[in-house]
């Protein structure tokens, strides 16, 4: 029962915090007065004067899109350069060299696309400069870009016979200044108070509490074991500006860990309090934006409807992961080999899970981090049961719309909403419309692009990796699980999620490039589609709502939306999943 209560508390807390935040984000993005405005407004003004931006510029879709793309392109080139040149840059107490061109490309793309796929381990390969000035900056601005594009779409939906979508520069600036920096500041302070490092000092060498012995084969054994040929009694503890990067990685659906093991590391996630803060931060902004949507279009029922669809899918996914992880496998349960209960200690499938978190906190995190396009982890998804590991994969394959990335989750979801409206709208005998705007060929083209880009990219990426004979050498496991590892990597990059199944050594030039291209396409094609859609919707006039209009806010519509999301996901991914987790599950139980 305690487990159920814990699941309930996490989910309830998430929604309870998202609702007030949605109103605040709305005020910020609408340019209205906020409490923080007293302090920040003058700073904002100075900033605009310095970069030469007019606060009142109202860009058309082409200009808005151009700014978004140019900003991202510059970010990409600068970050790529920083990563390759970090050896010559300051704040590098460990003297770490620059990354190879392909790894730097992969990493730069990964952070500029809000993916944070990591083919490297942060603590052993990146300098403080790369982490703080390179990666953390992108962690702040990429969610702001997603949010900006989303609000441009909102403005297009609300506008009539016009073309103004707001100013990209103002939107990004306000997103960073009013939403991400203040929230991250508060959370980082809690994190530092809980013991997360936030400094620029050298890595610390400390004594191990319990020395470890190494035998002749290089395996770890007890220090007093007779076969030990060597003992290790010291360890290196990585330092650096960790707390700030960890908090924004969660809040901005980035997910790139400071350390290789991400939030499973006690440095990044030291206490139950930091775990709950981070876990909720995974989905907080994406969920809040669903409610902001309703507020912005002046019909809160629309926001509640998309929230309901997302919420139901999230809870069902969480339930499935939790159930399968708690049940473990028939092999684990056989003859009581492993404790499966929940009393006193965490039972179930504990392989690859932190004992501090157990099945409950790990399942929550796995569901939240893949529902959101976040990708930070506190457990090893590779070690999940076949179905427990498939659900996170499916959450990404559905197009990262169950919350998804900040901004991009919702604009992709609106693509699915339009698809639903189109099919259902025809069935009531009208040419389809959403929020009073007719869905013509142009809108349909963009909606379809939003819906199928993710599966398209995933399939192409996975096919490319499958064709490369060298991929087999990167695998930890044979058979169906081996294919799952490849599919998960393609999925994680293709969904701009960035979480690692692990088990696949992805740092090869070929995989780095394939995954990099996947991330780029899945980030920017939908941004283009969203801007075109926003421009097209803004230029349309609204049609009146009558009893003959399809309701897009009732239970029936929510049901249909869920169905369409699942159908598109299932129809595109079912054969691939059959070769991976489904085959594995069937092999396991039969």
């Amino acid at each position, binding site marked *: 029962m305690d487990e159920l209560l814990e699941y309930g508390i996490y989910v309830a807390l998430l929604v309870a915090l998202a609702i007030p935040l949605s109103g605040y984000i709305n005020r910020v993005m609408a340019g209205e007065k906020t409490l923080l405005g007293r302090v920040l407004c003058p700073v904002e003004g100075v900033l605009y004067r310095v970069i030469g931006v007019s606060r009142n510029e109202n860009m058309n879709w082409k200009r808005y899109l151009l700014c978004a793309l140019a900003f991202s392109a510059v970010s990409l080139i600068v970050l790529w350069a920083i990563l390759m040149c970090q050896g010559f840059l300051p704040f590098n107490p460990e003297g770490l060299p620059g990354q190879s061109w392909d790894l730097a490309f992969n990493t730069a793309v990964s952070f500029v696309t809000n993916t944070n796929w990591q083919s490297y381990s942060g603590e052993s390969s990146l300098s403080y400069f790369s982490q703080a000035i390179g990666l953390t900056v992108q962690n702040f601005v990429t969610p702001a870009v997603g949010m900006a594009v989303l609000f441009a779409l909102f403005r297009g939906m609300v506008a009539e016979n016009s073309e103004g979508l707001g100013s990209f520069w103002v939107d990004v600036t306000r997103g960073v200044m009013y939403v991400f920096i203040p929230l991250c500041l508060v959370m980082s302070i809690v994190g530092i108070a809980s013991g997360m490092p936030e400094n620029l000092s050298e890595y610390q060498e400390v004594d191990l509490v319990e020395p470890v012995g190494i035998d002749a084969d290089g395996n770890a054994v007890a220090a007093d074991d007779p076969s030990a040929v060597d003992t290790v009694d010291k360890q290196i503890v990585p330092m650096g500006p960790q707390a700030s990067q960890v908090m924004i990685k969660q809040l901005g659906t980035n997910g790139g860990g400071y350390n290789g093991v991400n939030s499973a590391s006690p440095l990044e996630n030291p206490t139950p309090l930091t775990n709950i803060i981070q876990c909720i931060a995974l989905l907080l902004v994406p969920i809040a934006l669903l409610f902001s949507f309703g507020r912005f279009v002046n019909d809160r029922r629309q926001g509640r409807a998309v929230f309901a669809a997302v919420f139901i899918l999230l809870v069902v996914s969480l339930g499935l992961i939790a159930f399968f992880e708690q049940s473990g496998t028939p092999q684990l349960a056989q003859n009581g080999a492993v404790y499966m209960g929940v009393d006193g200690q965490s039972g179930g499938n504990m392989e690859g899970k932190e004992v501090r978190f157990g099945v409950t906190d790990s399942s929550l995190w796995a569901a939240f981090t893949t529902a959101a396009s976040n990708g930070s982890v506190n457990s090893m998804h590779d070690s999940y049961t076949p179905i427990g590991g498939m659900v996170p994969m499916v959450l990404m394959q559905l197009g990262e719309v169950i919350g998804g990335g900040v901004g991009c989750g919702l604009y992709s979801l609106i693509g699915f909403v339009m698809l639903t409206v*189109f*099919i*259902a*709208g*025809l*069935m*009531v*005998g*009208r*040419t*389809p419309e959403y929020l009073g705007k007719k869905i*013509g*060929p142009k809108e*349909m083209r963009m909606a*379809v*692009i939003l*819906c*199928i880009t993710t*599966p*398209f990219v995933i*399939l*192409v990426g*996975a*096919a490319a990796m*499958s*064709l490369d004979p060298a*991929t*087999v050498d990167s*695998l930890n496991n*044979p*058979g*169906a699980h081996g*294919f799952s590892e*490849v*599919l998960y990597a393609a999925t994680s990059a293709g969904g701009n999620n960035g979480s690692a199944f692990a088990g696949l050594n992805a740092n090869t030039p070929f995989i780095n490039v394939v995954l990099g291209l996947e991330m780029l396409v899945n980030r920017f094609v939908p941004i283009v589609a969203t801007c075109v859609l926003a421009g097209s919707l803004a230029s349309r006039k*609204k*049609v*009146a709502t*009558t*009893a*003959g*209009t*399809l*309701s897009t806010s*009732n239970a*029936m519509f929510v049901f*249909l939306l869920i169905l369409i999301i699942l*159908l598109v996901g299932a*129809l*595109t991914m*079912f*054969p*691939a999943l*059959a*070769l991976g987790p*489904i*085959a594995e599950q*069937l*092999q396991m139980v*039969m």
Partner: protein
Amino acid sequence: MRETMAIATLKQYDTKSQASRAVRDAFAKLNPKDQVKNPVMFMVFVSAILTTILFVLSLAGIADQQPGFILAIAVILWLTVLFANFAEAIAEGRGKAQADSLRAAKRDVQAHKITQGLLAAGQHEGDPASLYFARSEEVNSATLKKKDYVFVAAGEQIPADGEVVQGAASVDESAITGESAPVIRESGGDRSSVTGGTTVLSDWLVVCVTQESGKSFLDQMISMVESATRKKTPNEIALQILLVALTIIFLLVAASLFTFSGFSSGLSDMANPTTITSLVALFVCLAPTTIGALLSAIGIAGMSRLNKANVLAMSGRAVEAAGDVDVLLLDKTGTITLGNRQASEFVPVDGATEEELADAAQLASLTDETPEGRSIVVLAKERFNIRERELEGSGMVSIPFSAATRMSGVDFDGHEIRKGAADAIKSYVEKFGGSYSDECRQRVEDISRAGGTPLLVARDHRIVGVIYLKDIVKQGIKENFASLRKMGIKTIMITGDNPMTAAAIAAEAGVDDFLAEATPEAKLDMIRRYQAEGHMVAMTGDGTNDAPALAQADVAVAMNSGTQAAKEAGNMVDLDSSPTKLIDIVMIGKQLLMTRGSLTTFSIANDIAKYFAIVPALFVPLYPELDALNIMRLTSPETAILAAIIYNALIIVALIPLALKGVKYREASSQSLLTRNLLVYGLGGIVLPFVAIKAIDLLLTLCGMA
């Protein structure tokens, strides 16, 4: 609903010759140029070619599967393409048959082109034909230009579209409308437009040509029924985009699957169990071929349903717009009320008796040939048995209605009897020292408030009473409007009546709103106002003064009996000139869109069962455990794939009747329509293929294919 001659002709050879023509067309459409117009079916076409090549290669020993199996797949794919062609051909066939019979009506004739000017009025009293023959020359109708004048005698065909400038004649328009009763066409007013290809039965006409040959109404009709749907509508294009996107993604699913299964089998040191043939089959099954094959047939059939209702749409877009209409402007007369007002009561005032009033009213109406006038005479006879009296020789002088006095009546033996609208009679009696009593005013107001039209009768400058002219609201119209309201369609009554009368009738008929004392400008304003609020407005019109409003409305139905200007301003023409047609048009538009949506849903829902048939069939050699997904327990991988692809082909043929007829339409709220269609086509689309594929698999097994 009256059947046009075209439809009647169509019925005669509907069955055999049309079907064989459609079969011929289905093969003719295998031309890649035709195939490429439908991207979804084009991919099936390419797949059919690909499997055929694979079969030929397999005969040469390069086989990825048994040649017999590859041949079976290739044959079924060719059939799938042919079935889709057939669906389109049969839908087009209806239009073609209609066009053929219209073409029969259109032939070049000799026309009497007037070369020496028109005769002045009065000059042609005696024998106009010989007079005009002398002033005209014989030309071929094809050479007629705009503004030429032609003379048409009895028994001759009218050579071109035009306006009657002189004469009046009865005209047989059955070639166009299918209505055999002749209609009157005469100069001036709203009955002056004539159509080329119709025949003058009696008397004669002088017609000013308004459309040159090739652009005539008949030509337009022919091109409309033949080709209007060839141009895709925005909604069709949007749906096509969705279907193309699904096709592309399923193509990728099939192609990537080849690499996935190759990779997976490599991990287990096995040969790749999937073959190109089976992946092609998977792709064709998944691609939305059902809706892809039927999409254009649905559009053409919607148009031909409209034609069957004797309405011609200028574009397919207009039909779709009809489905979106949510405001209907309906003319009161003929649509909401029976054509004419009828006298229902005599209300005497100022001490007169009812019989006195009836007597005076009857006398005043004896020469009044309007339906209202006739109804007064009838009522007087019914109530007091007052017989019709002969005017001739009785010394009575009839005073006809004039716009100046707005009264009519009789004078006899020094008595004056007049009837007219309240204000006209009031000023008339007051001019002669009579009075308009409070009682009279009260009665007039009562009648107006009740939705009637009060008609005052005065005898010798003294008001004797009021005739209650009543509008008779059509039976069942209230229920009609209620169901329209449920569908979210607002009805607005347009009438020339005063607001009080209009309000009463509006309430009785149950319309949502009304426009009283309507002028063409007021109508136009109203349409603009509703459109500004985001509504889609439909209206009918016939007069030239309706043209601006027709041009503004989203769906504008011009009466065939109306003027040329009205027809040009509208985007549909109602050959029956029936004012209630608007409601049918909206239904047909909605039905067209619903059919499209329902079959799309059905097509996509089908994929679930196909996956359960094909995926285990593909991968069982690699992972035998995946046989658990074979929930239909199909006999073998080969029968499973064949069953799925045979179902995929047959369902196209099975759904042709539905595509042509349209899904059943009910007047209901959007919610209940959605629920119903989802249950039938969504749930049905999931369940049916499971059953059908299993059945086909059993049949194949029985035939020893396993």
